[in-house]
């Protein structure tokens, strides 16, 4: 059973906010991208803005940077209202989605531009470029042109260029899209490391929930221009505020069942055409009325019999559909009678043959129940 207390970190005080958005309304063309938006970003920390494509993340970042003017509301950076301040004077640095390196300059010159245009001495510039290049492991590329770089190197150069100048806030707009998984996780760790060592205020936008969770910082879940949840990655994962958030963060991994809740005395049962599961009432907020509900079970909370813990209860029988080995774990897909697919994460390498029927067990304390409106009816949802 989870409680809020486990996951809430120390509370924030007003004075540690570096960037604040107040009642912000931004319109692009005819579309209202967001309105009445209030967000705050802690100084010296990396905050993630997570959201599907089209949610408005880029617009958000560009509004903070000053390329888009809000119709209403204020953008406040380090206590200063910057609505009328042009981007070049906002003390902001950014990695763009398209990376925007200058193709006709060398990598060295690219990284140096934020400083060389501002009159820093040659020695100072060289010192900073070299140390950043070392930090990001791109020293060997300094004399080359951007087009000759590999995807990962290109990204690192863009990041170096962003970090070289002293800014009050660093914005990163989906800097890792189009890179393969291995490079992505390398760069992610790089960013985490940099965030911790440099202690700069960073805002990182990404559409990838696993990336957001892996960065391990505070995350704003941003959908269709609204903040639907804010908290640590773990909070989002274990205590999603809505079915929408759960589906998004669970991105295809969570098992989502639509069905009904039936009550018999004090027993609460969730039923679909495939199974009936007993829900322990103490994880629910109130005694739910009967009706349509959605049940979400995470793959690591469903296991075939031989891997099930004692506290697990029987769920349903399923036939092995396919198997995916992920590092040291295995994701096994089971097909139910109705054709529905159940995903189970086993913490070892496990290769059952296709078509084999197994009994699946689940951890009843870890399920999530949402009502028809997508609102969670869990005990913890009361205090969110």
């Amino acid at each position: 059973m989870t409680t809020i207390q486990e996951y809430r970190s120390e509370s924030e005080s007003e004075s540690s906010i570096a960037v604040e958005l107040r009642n912000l309304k931004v319109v692009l063309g005819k579309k209202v991208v967001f309105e009445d938006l209030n967000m705050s970003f802690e100084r010296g920390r990396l905050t993630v803005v997570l959201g599907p494509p089209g949610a408005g993340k880029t617009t958000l970042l560009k509004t903070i940077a000053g390329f888009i003017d809000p119709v209403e509301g204020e953008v406040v950076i380090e206590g200063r209202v910057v609505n009328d301040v042009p981007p070049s004077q906002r003390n902001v640095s950014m990695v763009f989605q398209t990376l925007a390196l200058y193709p006709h300059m060398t990598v060295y010159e690219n990284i140096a531009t934020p400083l060389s245009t501002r009159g820093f001495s040659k020695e100072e510039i060289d010192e900073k470029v070299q140390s950043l290049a070392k930090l990001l492991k791109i020293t060997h590329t300094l004399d080359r042109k951007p087009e000759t770089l590999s995807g990962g190197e290109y990204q690192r150069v863009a990041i170096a260029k962003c970090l070289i100048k002293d800014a009050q806030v660093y914005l990163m707009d989906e800097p890792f899209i189009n890179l393969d998984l291995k490079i992505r996780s390398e760069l992610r760790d790089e960013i985490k490391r940099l965030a911790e060592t440099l202690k700069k205020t960073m805002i990182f936008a990404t559409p990838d929930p696993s990336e957001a969770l892996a960065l391990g910082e505070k995350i704003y879940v941003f959908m269709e221009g609204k903040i639907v949840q804010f908290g640590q990655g773990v909070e989002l994962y274990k205590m999603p505020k809505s079915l929408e958030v759960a589906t998004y963060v669970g991105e295809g991994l969570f098992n989502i069942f639509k069905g009904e809740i039936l009550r018999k005395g004090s027993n609460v049962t969730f039923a679909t055409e495939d199974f009936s599961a007993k829900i322990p009432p103490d994880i629910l907020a109130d005694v739910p009325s009967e009706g349509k509900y959605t049940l979400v079970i995470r793959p690591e909370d469903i296991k075939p019999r031989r891997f099930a813990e004692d506290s697990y209860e029987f769920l349903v029988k399923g036939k092995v559909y396919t198997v995916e080995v992920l590092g040291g774990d295995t994701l096994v897909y089971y097909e139910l009678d109705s054709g529905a697919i159940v995903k189970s994460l086993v913490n070892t390498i496990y290769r059952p043959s296709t078509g084999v029927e197994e009994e699946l067990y689940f951890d009843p304390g870890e399920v999530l129940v949402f009502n028809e409106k997508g609102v969670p009816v869990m005990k913890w949802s009361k205090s969110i």
Partner: protein
Amino acid sequence: MNVKKIFWTIIAFIIVGIYIFPVYWIYLTAFKDRATLFELPPKFIFTPVWDNFDELMRYNALQAVVNSVIVTSISILVSLLIGFLAAYGLSRYKYPGKNLMLFYIISTRMMPPIVFIIPIYMMFSYLGMKGTYLSMILFYIGVTLPFAVWMSKTFIDEISIEIDQAAQLDGFTTIDFFRKILIPMIAPGLVAVLVFSLITVWNEFLMANILSDPFTRPASVALANIRGERGFNWGRVAALELIYTIPVIILIFLIQKYLVRGLTLGVVR
């Protein structure tokens, strides 16, 4: 397969060769002396001489070419400058009536020049500018500007606006941004715009004929009226034509890559 390819290559070169024969023939003629000029059967093989070119210089016939150079170079450069700036604005930002502006720019291609000759003539007459370089230059800027705007815009459109934004964050002033970032990135395209404008102005005849006087007339006017000149001689005409047309031929080989793009957006004549 290979033989077939070579076969068609040869056929194609023969056909194209025959097609552009008239150009070649005149170039040949430019090097013939008085006697060989009118010989029948016409000679293909002969000893080339520079006589005609010498005579051109003696008769000061090259003044016309100089005029062409002056008028052309100034108008295309000014046109590109104004056009590039406008193209930048139109590419990056939404203005009220932007589509109207673009439409207006394209529609100028449709206009037959004949509609303009009288008002332009009257305008420059009233201003006392008949026969000046300036009148031709001002007119030609107007002729090449729409194309310069349109073409430049297509090149600027290809550059992501995030480059502009990165440059803003990097602390570049707008002018420095143009000088150090944007223009270097689209330089070949701008060269192509210049070349197309150059060809347009260099070849133009009608308005130049009306606006220039015997001292300022460009080569197109000189050549068109050459039949009535004193001492008219086909050899010298051929030499002058060679000097007049070679620069354009060299230039189109230089911008081969952009020929299709420029010409299909509307032939600029």
